[in-house]
């Protein structure tokens, strides 16, 4: 069931409140990326109709919702998200093992192909913040601790920075999917992600899904930018 790797690991982040813009990107980039990622801004602005519209492009959709609530609530929300057709979504590992298990069961009962990813420590959280919320640091250790828990709870993988791939891979094994945001082609604006790597570096490090936003969507020619990334990753672009 869990042969869930994608031929093209690039998921383009449709970080915009503009539905038409998002759909235009989705359609234009269809042949050059592996999937589309939508987040809270998009989902809050456009709701289930917006999610269905993005799903209708035919590309796998990663809903970056980061659910974190009591198990029943997260399970019910996971079921509804799976019904909308999102093939990947994420939940906070710190919600605990029962919450994670129930979310996986609820989503898989709707569609067994759904991939559920854990969020460990947000990239915006440093050791001081971790300490201030009463979590045990240092951050890199907490990341691996939560990744192990995610695996035990039956999640398919976790979101992590490219630098965390090594230790998580060592702890969780080759089948655990590692989703890396903050990937920037060489020379691109680093935006708001602190820890960055290029697509080729992330690929060598073992990233399974790379979330790339502005380096594609803010490029003068998004299709050309996506093609260049696909080429950098050694994937023949369709003609």
């Amino acid at each position, binding site marked *: 069931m869990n042969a869930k790797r994608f031929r093209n690991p690039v998921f383009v982040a449709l970080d915009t409140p503009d539905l038409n813009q998002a759909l235009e990107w989705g359609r234009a980039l269809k042949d050059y990326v592996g999937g589309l990622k939508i987040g809270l801004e998009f989902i809050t602005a456009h709701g289930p109709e917006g999610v269905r519209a993005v799903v*209708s492009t035919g590309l796998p959709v990663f809903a970056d919702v980061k659910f974190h609530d009591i198990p029943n609530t997260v399970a019910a929300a996971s079921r509804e998200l799976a019904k909308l*057709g999102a093939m990947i979504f994420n939940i906070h590992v710190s919600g605990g093992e029962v919450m994670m298990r129930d979310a996986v069961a609820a989503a*898989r*009962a709707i569609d067994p*192909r759904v991939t559920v990813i854990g969020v460990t420590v947000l990239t915006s959280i440093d050791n001081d913040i971790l300490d201030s919320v009463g979590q045990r640091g240092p951050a890199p250790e907490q990341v691996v601790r939560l990744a192990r828990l995610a695996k035990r709870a039956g999640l398919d993988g976790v979101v992590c920075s490219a630098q965390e791939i090594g230790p998580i891979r060592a702890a969780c094994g080759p089948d655990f999917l590692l989703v890396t945001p903050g990937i920037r082609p060489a020379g691109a604006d680093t935006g708001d992600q602190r820890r960055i790597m290029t697509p080729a570096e992330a690929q060598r490090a073992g990233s399974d899904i790379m979330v790339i936003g502005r380096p594609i969507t803010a490029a003068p020619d998004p299709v050309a930018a996506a093609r260049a990334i696909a080429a950098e990753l050694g994937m023949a672009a369709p003609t």
Partner: protein
Amino acid sequence: MAVLVKICGIATADAADAVVRAGADFAGLMFHPGSPRRVDLPQAAALAERMRGRVRLVAVMSDLPDESIGAVIGAVKPDLIQLHGAETAARVGAIRSRFGVPVMKVVSVATADDLAGVAAHDDAADMLMFDAKAPAGATRQGGHGAAFDWQILRARKFQKPWLLAGGLNAENVARAIRACEAPGVDVSSGVEIAPGTKSPDMIAAFVSAARNAQYGAVA
């Protein structure tokens, strides 16, 4: 966790809209020739587009050859295939890998003996459904409104999610769920005013009764 609900045998736009409005999880489109709920491919495709993304689409087939299964999948693009015939576990696995669509296998039950071969289907399929065995001489497998002894399933463990079917309606569904701790339920004739004619009110009542019957941890 909330009980999954499937409404089977959707054949009209009214029924499709009622299923979506009621918030059911799965809607079944019936391709078995003997069924009063049977839809042809153009009808099924139109109903599927009406419901897509609002409820998971299930194509229900019995013992069809690959060619016919392929035609249904091409027209309907279902989220799930329900195999309601005498398909073996090997056949279930072959259909699943050939078409790349998840499969729910129906196991017809009258007594506990009928569960003997279920482990192989539990391995091969993505979901299971336990339906009442058709009465002797019936020309189709499901939709007879007959129930079986739900207690047979109590305390049975399956790897895959499963739905209870057969003779369910808004009045008895909560009792059935509690009797066997079913993770989900399926209904067809139990929400009809005449064979093949769905009632939107009965669909809404059924979904509500099943959802309110949830067992296990309540937050």
